[in-house]
């Protein structure tokens, strides 16, 4: 399993890719030209990398390679200039960050979600289950929680309205659970057509990208399915890190490695100071 730390003093192009870089390049290939992607706010450390660092790097990489008109809505900024990302997360860095638009009212963003103006969104979570339902609200009994989490934000909207949600989480038995304690975001609900029967649009989460493997959802049953294993990771390792057994595809390829060009852009152009993919 590759480490995320790279030695910046070494020739960046010859270092083997970190897990974050593998994941970022894999996500970048999912971004199509013209996509508008919703990137949420992250907290610090690893949670920031998952919620913000990897998504922003991936969209910027896609912009530079095959999707020049892809863009993001981040915080209150519509199409911020990803060629000059802020060096820190202090308020004034957001205030100063140049963008195509900063709508005065957060309702503008909510309405864009509800009218399906987004193509892609990125989501992180404390729990995800077999059908891709997410929990970011509470662990344990909702009314008497063991751990109170942050709430909901717009994550219910993401799964309700965005055609191609991508979940970015680390593989962990406490995260990949048989059934989430609280359904914040409705994924494929109880599988099959239960999502549509609840009145939601078809869609729901498309990909779950982790530090060990990438998953999609089996058509029909809508159960989480292993799609590829990162280099050096075995299926048994993956199963050990999950509380439920994912569907196995007929073929189980390795997650493609980033190209030299992709690595070079990530390391030297997009995130030269290792702010976005630090941990």
């Amino acid at each position, binding site marked *: 399993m590759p480490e995320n730390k790279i030695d910046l003093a070494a020739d960046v192009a010859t270092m083997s890719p970190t897990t974050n870089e593998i994941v970022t390049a894999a996500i970048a290939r999912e971004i199509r030209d013209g996509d508008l992607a919703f990137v949420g*706010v*992250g*907290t*610090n450390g690893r949670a*920031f990398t998952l919620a913000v660092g990897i998504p922003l790097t991936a969209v910027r990489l896609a912009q530079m390679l095959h999707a020049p008109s892809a863009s993001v809505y981040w*915080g*209150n900024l519509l199409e911020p200039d990803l060629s000059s990302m802020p060096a820190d*997360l*202090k*308020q*004034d860095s*957001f*205030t*100063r960050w140049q963008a195509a638009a*900063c*709508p*005065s*009212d*957060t*309702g503008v*963003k*909510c*309405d864009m*979600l*509800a009218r399906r103006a987004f193509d892609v969104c990125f989501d992180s979570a404390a729990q995800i289950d077999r059908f891709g339902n997410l929990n970011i*609200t*509470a662990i344990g009994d*909702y*009314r*008497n*929680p*063991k*751990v*109170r*989490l*942050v*709430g*909901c*934000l*717009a*994550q*219910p*909207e993401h799964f*309700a*309205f965005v055609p191609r949600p991508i979940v970015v989480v680390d593989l962990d038995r406490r995260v990949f659970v048989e059934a989430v304690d*609280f*359904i*914040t*975001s*409705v994924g494929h*609900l109880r599988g099959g057509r*239960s*999502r549509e029967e*609840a*009145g*939601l649009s078809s869609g729901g989460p498309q990909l779950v990208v982790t530090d060990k493997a990438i998953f999609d959802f089996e058509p029909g049953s809508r159960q989480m399915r292993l799609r590829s294993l990162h280099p050096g990771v075995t299926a048994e390792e993956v199963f050990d890190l999950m509380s439920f057994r994912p569907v196995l595809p007929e073929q189980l390829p390795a997650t493609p490695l980033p190209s030299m060009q992709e690595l070079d852009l990530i390391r030297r152009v997009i995130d030269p100071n290792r702010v976005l993919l630090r941990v």
Partner: protein
Amino acid sequence: MKEKLTTLEEALAPIASGSTLALGGSLLRRQPNAAIRSLIRRGVKDLTVQSWAATTATDMLAAAGAISRFEGIYTGMFSYGLAPNFRRGVEGGAIAVRDFSETAMVARFRAATQGLAFLPIKTLLGSDIARHNPEQIRPFSCPFTGEPLQAVAAAKADFTIIHGYVGDKYGNVQWPIVRDSDDIDQMIASAATRLIVTVEKIVPHEEIKRRPTLTYIPGNWVEAIVELPYGAHPAACDGHYDEDDAHLTGYLERSRTPEGAQTYLDEYARSVPDHDAYVAKVGGLAALEALDVPNREQTHA
């Protein structure tokens, strides 16, 4: 126009224990922290708080044991992690939570703004958010298509508190041209029953009326306006000053235990008679000015 300029204590005097409060700001910007410290000082309790992305203001109220119910989309400390006192309050059963997603909370504020008891959404179909809150989220059918929808109840607050940029003595509040989003401040201002605004600076009405398109909160909606420089401290006021990292870090460290949180509130809320004393306590204006960001295009440019 009516003069509405007053002191913080006068402005907040009508807020009694048991009230429902809507709080402006989002994440670490424009939290009405000075007003919240004043309510804590006075010992107001049993509040229902309605908020957008809640951080310092809500967590301090939670530390003071002043919140019995919270309705909003998020409570945390943004890049500083979870909100320790709020979390303790919820996990210990002191605070009942009604969670809403962003479109749902926006619909609730808009319903109040539009004089309606509800607005429709279709976000929460199948979600546990709706399942746990039949009182405020009800299923119904679209009168045109028959499709399933959800009615979310209007967010009606007894009082609304917002920290804004600059305003005049009539309560007209303007934003700078280079700023972050107002998030929900205009929305909850328009939804307000009784609206109290604190601002960084009071400017002459002549300056306000030269550029009326910059007024995001018309004085007509306002009950009281108070001049409170650094009124959002230790949070930021975009275009004016940044968040106080050292102070926030200290707050979070002390908030690891309930006792530590009480010593924080004693020191910064309960033992200081007013906002001026708070400013002195945190090092005076000179210390706060170190947080200032370059003045670009202010309303009062």
